[in-house]
């Protein structure tokens, strides 16, 4: 690839959990890139490793989880091997994080102003008054009405959607280059969900931040992301521009996943279903991890692991589906 290096480059990242029964490989050669001003959607079902990818990038992997291989680069600088103290400074300053549950990611005993000001002053050289003004600006930016009043309220005085806006303001406090948003809309109602995804999109465009949006909801990805990476059993199995992946998925799993979403337009007699479930980490089948559930699996799929192609719309499959819309 030519031009400026991507803001975030994850290269063959491997995350391993050491257990009594030996190491479990939870992420297997995950590679992805996000440019400034771009939203990458990372989608997958429970246990696919999508949140773990986010956690590894933020540097919040808990033991026994550890990075066993690969590199994470932010603006060309390696961040996966930084000492904890340096990583702590980076987090919040250059990487902002938004988590799923807006209630548990805020301190219940402190006003949102105290939390914002603390974060701002940790990362920026501002005095208390300037930090407060900055906090009010941030609250305005994320669309909280009457921020001068609301800044002195406690989290319980906010609704779920408003709390998530506060969490986003906190993530923006250090003016980060990269925002990792892990299921930011999952706990919210649909009408509020739309407000939050629109806000994320606006922030990404206006600030030129790179956003990694981790979610299980293909609809949210389709509406918000520029590019998407589909994960299955710890690997990226398909990646590409969101239009291409949602309209003409090439991996049988992505195709099945898209077809199993009930349509809003017509009522089908029955939904497409992928039988079985994602394998556990302890029992990932050899070859392509999807082969036991795949209708098009051949002998090769059972022994040889397919690698992700080096294409804009890439797939890790020996028998990718030809183009054309699904269903």
């Amino acid at each position, binding site marked *: 690839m030519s031009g400026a290096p991507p803001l975030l480059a994850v290269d063959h990242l491997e995350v391993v959990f050491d257990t009594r029964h030996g190491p479990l490989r939870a992420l297997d050669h995950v590679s992805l890139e996000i440019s400034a001003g771009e939203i990458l959607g990372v989608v997958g*079902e*429970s246990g696919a490793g999508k949140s773990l990818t986010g956690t590894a990038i933020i540097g919040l992997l808990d033991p026994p989880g550890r990075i066993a291989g690969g590199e994470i680069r932010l603006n060309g600088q390696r961040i996966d091997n930084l000492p904890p103290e340096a990583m702590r400074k980076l987090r919040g300053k250059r990487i902002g994080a938004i988590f799923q549950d807006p209630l548990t990611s805020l301190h219940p005993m402190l006003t949102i102003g105290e939390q914002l000001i603390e974060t701002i002053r940790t990362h920026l050289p501002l005095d208390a008054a300037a930090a407060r003004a900055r906090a009010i600006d941030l609250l305005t930016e994320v669309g909280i009405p009457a921020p001068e009043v609301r800044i002195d309220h406690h989290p319980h005085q906010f*609704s*779920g*959607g*408003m709390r998530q806006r506060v969490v986003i303001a906190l993530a923006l406090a250090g003016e980060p280059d990269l925002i990792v948003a892990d299921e930011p809309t999952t706990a919210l*109602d*649909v*009408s*509020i*969900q*739309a*407000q939050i*995804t*629109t806000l994320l999109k606006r922030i990404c465009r206006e600030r030129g931040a790179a956003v990694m949006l981790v979610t*299980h*909801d*293909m*609809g*949210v990805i*389709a*509406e*918000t992301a520029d590019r998407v990476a589909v994960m299955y059993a710890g690997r990226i199995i398909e990646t590409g521009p*969101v*239009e291409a992946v*949602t*309209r003409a998925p090439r991996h049988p799993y992505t195709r*099945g*996943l*898209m077809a*199993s*979403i*009930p*349509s*809003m*337009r017509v*009522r*089908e007699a*029955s*939904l*497409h*279903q*992928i*039988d079985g*479930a*994602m394998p556990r980490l302890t029992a990932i089948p050899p070859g392509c991890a999807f082969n036991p559930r795949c209708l098009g699996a051949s002998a090769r799929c059972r022994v040889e692991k397919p690698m992700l192609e080096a294409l804009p719309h890439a797939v890790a499959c020996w028998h990718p589906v030809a183009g054309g819309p699904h269903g």
Partner: protein
Amino acid sequence: MAEENPIALTVEDATCHFDVSAPWLTRVLQQSQRRILKAVDGVSFTVPRGKTLSIVGESGCGKSTLARMVIGLQPLTSGKIAFPPLARPHGTFAPPRLQMIFQDPYASLNPRWRVGEIVAEPIRELKLMVGESAIQARIAELLNIVGLAPADAARYPHEFSGGQRQRISIARALATEADFLVCDEPTSALDVSVQAQILNLMRQLQDEFGLTYLFISHNLSVVRHMSDEIAIMYLGRFVETGPAEQVFSDPRHPYTRLLLETIPSVETPNRARTPMSGEVPSPIAPPSGCPFHPRCALAEARCRTERPRLTGSGRQVACHVTAAVAP
């Protein structure tokens, strides 16, 4: 030959109020009023036999309370819920048997019981079968029906995935020879590919056993797939009801339109949309007149003072503005 009643459930003006007042002494000292949360406020509907009525709404609209009222877990403040008797063998009539499928398959199965015991409990309790061998045969049959193996009866719930657990819940519900299932968000804890499996199973069981479903969900695409009839609920009241087909193709109430507009869809990636501002108001102090008016673009002076009633037959809409325009 007695005639079958085409109606499985009639709910008339069902109301459920919760007293959320401060304690007595506090009220006296602060001279504050009693505060009543009208979770369900005068809801009437019927469910045809062998069909699915879905109740859709955002968090806090009262849909789960309504489900609990129907199943008898929540006493009514006022109103009436009636189950017309069904024809039973030997020319007798009896009310339908009700069962509930809960949202969280991790919390609704006793972790210390084997699956066989979980499924057998209603059979033993209701004395539907005599003799251990008959019961064991029935358990095997039920597990087969829901797509599990008879040998799974000897395993514990923790050995199963979320989707499989939801199958166990369904088997337990069917064990009572239930005619009527109240399903409160049965798939919202599941991944989409597993959700498709469960929805297909539920539709197939409905065709096979003539089950009636009262289906509670916030997910419109799931509701679209499951429902014959649909009711949109907002702050404890129905705002629009009618055949699912018509409600989806021609939504009349501004709130229904909002819900359909904001739902993220994989069918239209990166659609530019205008998110709806505002949030669901508190049911303790709902807005005057039409409770939706603060969020409604079409609101008129009348909407702020006068509460609209559900009008129309077949398709019912509670809106001053759109009901008048509608043919």
